[in-house]
């Protein structure tokens, strides 16, 4: 068991390092970068929803917060996107507490519905807010390649390594949460909030802590996205469909597990790209049909997701 784990990690590390060599076409590189980005978003969502049991369908708000904060700070104040990333994370954490405090009074489905409402409100505000480009969006000026500028045009590899770093950080924090006392409080709240309160756990405080971690990583992903695409508008940076996609990836991959959400992204993101390539504009919803079918299958046959399937296969 121990030795096989070491081998597995070594194989994964080798694969991860070899990807830039294997994925020679820009299209494939883009795909791999997307998988890692969405894997991180799904894992960040999982901190709140998987461990702590609070299903949020408004995480696009934090993604947008990260993307817009770094972009606006760059355009208006010439601030480095790296500082912008930090600013976006801080702002998203603050926002998550402001949103979470009232919303956490609601339980289960009602909480999820409230987060959808908040997401729609924030997107509508962004669509009408002139200072951040309103519906026209914002474009970042193209700068020469450099780490300081967070822009790479001659080769996209640096983006790959940056998003990989973000994902690994997110996984490391999640692994720490899983093992720490805080992680057990999260799980106690997920399994039975009243019982958690009855043993003296301040339930709302820990839900807010989970929300803060979750929002922070999603915001970092948002800044990354802004620097990668160099164009932002409310339709692309904070749509409801993004919130739902993040949730879907984690659910299909395995809610409440460390590797599930990444696994979900690794399976579903290429699938959606494939259908896009195969069907073009006429098949716009084909990936959603496949997602729906997969989701139904997961719910019926394997509620623990792909990660549960793997665990079962290994247990045999």
């Amino acid at each position: 068991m121990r030795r096989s784990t070491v081998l597995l990690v070594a194989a994964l590390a080798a694969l991860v390092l070899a990807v830039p060599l294997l994925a020679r076409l820009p299209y494939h590189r883009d795909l791999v970068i997307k998988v890692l980005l969405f894997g991180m978003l799904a894992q960040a969502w999982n901190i709140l929803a998987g461990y702590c049991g609070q299903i949020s369908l408004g995480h696009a708000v934090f993604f947008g917060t990260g993307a817009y904060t770094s972009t606006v700070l760059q355009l208006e104040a010439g601030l480095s996107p790296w500082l912008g990333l930090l600013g976006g994370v801080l702002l998203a954490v603050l926002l998550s507490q402001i949103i979470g405090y009232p919303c956490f009074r609601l339980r289960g489905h009602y909480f999820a519905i409230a987060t959808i409402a908040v997401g729609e409100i924030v997107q509508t505000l962004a669509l009408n807010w002139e200072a951040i480009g309103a519906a026209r969006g914002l474009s970042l000026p193209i700068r020469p390649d450099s780490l300081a500028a967070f822009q790479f045009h001659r080769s996209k590899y640096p983006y790959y390594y940056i998003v990989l770093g973000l994902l690994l950080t997110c996984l490391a924090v999640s692994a720490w949460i899983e093992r720490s006392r805080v992680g057990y409080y999260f799980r106690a709240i997920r399994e039975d909030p009243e019982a958690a309160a009855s043993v003296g756990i301040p339930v709302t405080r820990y839900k807010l802590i989970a929300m803060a971690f979750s929002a922070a990583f999603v915001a970092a992903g948002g800044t990354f996205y802004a620097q990668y695409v160099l164009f932002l508008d409310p339709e692309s940076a904070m749509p409801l469909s993004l919130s739902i996609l993040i949730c879907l990836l984690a659910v299909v991959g395995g809610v409440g597990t460390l590797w599930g959400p990444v696994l979900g992204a690794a399976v579903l993101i290429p699938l959606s790209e494939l259908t896009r390539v195969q069907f073009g504009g006429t098949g716009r919803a084909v990936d959603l049909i496949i997602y729906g079918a997969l989701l139904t299958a997961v719910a019926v046959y394997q509620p623990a997701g792909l990660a549960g399937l793997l665990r079962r296969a290994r247990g045999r």
Partner: protein
Amino acid sequence: MLAVRDLEVLYGDFQVLWGVSLEVQEGEIACLLGPNGAGKSTILNAVSGLVRPAAGTIEFCGERVDRLPTHEIVTRGLSHILERRRVFPYLTVEKNLSLGAYQERARPHREESLAWVYDLFPRLRERRQQLAHSLSGGEQQMLAIGRGLMSRPRFLMIDEPFLGLGPRVVAEILEIIRKINAAGVTVLFIEQNVQLALEVSHRGFLLESGRMALAGPARDLLEADLIREVYLGI
């Protein structure tokens, strides 16, 4: 130790408790009796802060606690074991117990408390690595009580500890409640079996439709006409 005065609780427009008062002295075992829907659980939930009273006061060890959040009430040495056990199903027995020692005050004593709980419930020690949902009903009840003890309470409230359990397990848990009490913990529990409850208790309270119908030393209640006629059928 616990003094509830003129407690009124509403769920929306529906009033559940109408001016209920009760007092439990330190070192006692007390039971709260009454038919379904009388408001027994609501009293315990109000005491532990899970529901907010509309009127009345709750004093625990001489201090008002009726406006405090649950986690602060628990800090003061009160432990509430909820109805239907409510263990964390997908955590192991030992993790369930450890979570009971959340409070700052209880954390340094976790190993000691764990040993105490395992001594009270040897069955839990045998099953410590098992997931809680795989335990039998009686074992889950033991786990719920054990988890409640991990915070080192001075006052333990148990909501229907014997619900759905066989006679042998009931006897076992009764014995443990006596032991816990002998260790200096005041106990207040809810029970439907009047005879059984009054036999272990020092004091009893009978609740009917949200009002206190009878209260007094358990021995007197066993003799009371109302109880003899309505609940014991003699």
